[in-house]
């Protein structure tokens, strides 16, 4: 079994563009598949959340021969594949793949006359294919690649993910300005720096910005996906001189991107090339709408992966790039990928089945079962989508279990000293200390600790009460020291001033809330001791 491909002249730049595109998406492996009339290159990223492929029709090459077989599949290291195009000026390239030799021989002839022969070792690899039927996706956007690049340059260079929102056409008419598409920067709320992250939003006039826009769905649709992989396709389209076509349906469903219509032209003639990029998207909608996934679809377990075609076997009734559908799914395409890390552990425990989830390449999606820790700040903490659905959020919080946390950090206390987060085990920081075994008079009733999911407003009210108590405490300490005053009254002017001072003091003490009853008790004790001292005969030890 052997494959021989010969390519000359300016067509080589398309092969180079394809390799560069595939290397940007999948950095490790490049899979090759040669069938009778097509040559397909594929790559997939390590987290299996992005799938890239590029196909050449057989007549694209100056010579294309598949001998003694109908299909050949092989894999090479991406680094080796890129080494073929290290020199810039290449005149001719010949690829010769023989299964029995277990290597790919590539002969390159440079402009300066150097003849280079590379021998790339083949790897055992599984040929993965994405099962996506995007023909029924309601949203279709066609745009110039350089125009999209220009729009994306408005976003922060360090941005990982973006969200595209597409409004239905009938709603679009209500706006009157055709600004039916928005692009938002997506910041993972779980990240520590999310509060300070720069957020960017673009509203696009579809008629002015895009070459074509179509949303046949009844509801707005949004998808959140990785930006770096998306830009790889934009670079490919620019290299090919073609436009970009995006198709998507709903959050959680894959986003399909490809060069639009005629992928490339050379010398006024259309070239038979096609590229495909399938990106996994975030499951949750940024619009707060439920994910529009068909019922009955189940998430795949951690060990399940997209069905693989064993190397060397021909996928039946599949012309080239049309894949089979992954096991367990049906209908409109499921980009089922293998999960890794924590998600795998959680799903391995069989927590739940549900629609396909976002793969682990993206930041970990917050599990609703895990209570969200409260955050101190000037604005109440809000989970993703909470603003849009306050009632739903409250219901969720009521159902959530109380979450116990430790005492607030020093930084938090410094920022908002009056706000305290506590549980039944945490003592009040400035509360009067009681003797062992005696509960403070101002202690809360012996009930379940405060629900962690109380709104900050609840904590604010408690904090205000605490502040009032502190103020009263401060006022109490501004009074003359009861022991000193009582001593002065008792020791010097016991008759003249003692009655009046005692009456005032007693009145004040009576006005004090029960919180200060402990101090009242201390005062009473001190007064009794002083009275005992007075009754004692000088020189005679008391008691």
């Amino acid at each position: 079994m052997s494959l021989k491909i010969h390519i000359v002249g300016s067509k080589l730049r398309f092969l180079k563009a394809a390799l560069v595109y595939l290397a940007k998406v999948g950095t490790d492996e490049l899979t090759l598949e040669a069938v009778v009339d097509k040559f397909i290159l594929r790559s997939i990223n390590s987290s299996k959340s992005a799938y890239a492929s590029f196909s050449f029709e057989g007549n694209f090459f100056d010579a294309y021969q598949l001998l003694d077989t109908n299909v050949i599949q092989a894999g090479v290291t991406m680094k080796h594949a890129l080494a073929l195009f290290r020199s810039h000026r290449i005149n001719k390239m010949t690829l010769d793949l023989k299964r029995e030799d277990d290597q790919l021989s590539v002969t390159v002839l440079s402009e300066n006359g150097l003849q280079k022969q590379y021998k790339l070792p083949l790897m055992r690899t599984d040929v993965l294919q994405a099962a996506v039927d995007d023909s029924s996706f309601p949203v279709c956007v066609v745009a110039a690649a350089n125009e999209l690049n220009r729009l994306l340059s408005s976003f922060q260079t360090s941005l990982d993910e973006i969200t595209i929102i597409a409004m239905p056409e009938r709603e679009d008419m209500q706006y009157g300005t055709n600004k039916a598409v928005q692009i938002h920067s997506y910041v993972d709320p779980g990240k520590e720096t999310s509060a300070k992250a720069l957020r960017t939003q673009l509203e696009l006039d579809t008629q002015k910005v895009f070459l074509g826009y179509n949303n046949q769905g009844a509801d707005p649709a949004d998808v959140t996906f990785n930006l770096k992989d998306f830009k790889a396709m934009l670079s490919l389209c620019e290299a090919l001189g073609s436009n970009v076509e995006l198709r998507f349906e709903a959050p959680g469903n894959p986003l399909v991107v490809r060069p639009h219509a005629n992928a490339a032209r050379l010398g006024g003639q259309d070239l038979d090339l096609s590229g495909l990029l399938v990106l996994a998207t975030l499951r949750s909608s940024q619009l707060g709408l439920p994910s529009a996934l068909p019922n009955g679809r189940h998430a795949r377990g951690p060990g399940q992966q997209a069905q693989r075609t064993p190397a060397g076997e021909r996928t039946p009734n599949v012309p080239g790039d049309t894949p089979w559908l992954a096991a367990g799914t049906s209908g409109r395409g499921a980009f089922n990928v293998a999960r890794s890390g924590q998600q795998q552990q959680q799903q391995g425990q069989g927590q739940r089945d549900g629609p396909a989830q976002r793969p682990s390449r993206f930041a970990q999606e917050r599990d609703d079962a895990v209570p969200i820790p409260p955050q101190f700040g000037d604005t109440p903490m809000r989970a993703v989508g909470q603003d849009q659905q306050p009632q739903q959020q409250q219901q969720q919080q009521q159902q959530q279990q109380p979450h116990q946390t430790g005492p607030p950090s020093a930084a938090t206390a410094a920022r908002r000293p009056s706000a305290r987060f506590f549980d039944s085990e945490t003592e009040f920081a400035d509360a009067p200390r009681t003797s062992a075994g005696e509960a403070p008079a101002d202690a809360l009733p012996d009930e379940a600790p405060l629900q962690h999911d109380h709104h900050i407003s609840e904590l604010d009210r408690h904090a205000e009460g605490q502040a009032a108590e502190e103020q009263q405490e401060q006022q109490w300490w501004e009074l003359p020291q009861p022991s000193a005053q009582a001593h002065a009254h008792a020791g010097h002017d016991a008759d003249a001033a003692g009655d009046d001072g005692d009456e005032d003091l007693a009145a004040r003490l009576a006005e004090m809330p029960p919180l200060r009853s402990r101090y009242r008790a201390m005062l009473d004790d001190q007064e009794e001791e002083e009275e005992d001292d007075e009754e004692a005969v000088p020189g005679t030890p008391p008691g």
Partner: protein
Amino acid sequence: MEEAEQALIRVIGSKGLLAVLQAVKPASNKQASMVTITKDGMNIRWEDESKSLQSSIFLNSEVFAEFQVPWVRKTFGLHFHTFTDTLTVFASTSTSDLTIRYPGPNEELTFELVEAISEQQLCTYARINTLDLDLSPEISEYWQEPSSYFLAPGAMLREAIEDLEWAACSGAQTQGSVTVHLKRSPPSITLSASDAAELSIKLPVGDLAGFMCTEAEVYHKYKYKLMRAAFSNLPSAKEAATQMSTKVTVDSSGIMKVMHMVPLFGGGASQGNPLGPSGPNLSQGFSRRGSVHFFLLPQDVVIEYDGEDDV
């Protein structure tokens, strides 16, 4: 020391000299080089730590604006990087002529650049300590005829050696080797590496300026690190690269001699410059060339430098 016993060398702009020195830039910052000044010119030589690579630059007296040497021959040691760093300072400040004198106070190498600014003179001055250095005998002393050679553009050989890095080295390791294979009939020149991967590069013998293979086949292996030092540090400027020719000679024992003819561009105008006005000029550039030599030992050859050969 009296000025009459000083060698005086005047350089028309130090950028060209600096570019040539960069071609033999050693890897180590502490690399010492041996400088020899004779009536014929200036020779700068250094050797690799492994003693398998020796490099030298010979600058003919004619490439300088002025070259006065009152004695026959003097040799001194110099830290190579200190020398190039000093030249970099002078090259970046002005295009006026640079005057080098030796020996200066305390046997130092002195540099002086005088330029006129608004009817006043600004003088920049530097001194470098010299060293007492003992280098190994030159590998060329062990040269054995007959030898085979070929002439090729320096840029072509540079591209070939840089492409071979992919096959010779895995990751950050540069311990791979390159095989040089010359064949008399049919005439062919092949450079190949097969450590991390396999790559062989054939040179277009028919397009080369010269080729001679004295034996039926010449086949030797050299460390990739040494080949890279000999071919890849040459001036990368487009004009310099296109006008640079390289002669590769291999003797019967496998010692490889690589000689680059490097054009010296970047000179500034100077009164009394016998070579004419400033700026790169093909005819003048051709006459202002430096020769850069490398001697490489093959992997299967060991030379004991205590006077005994062991080939």
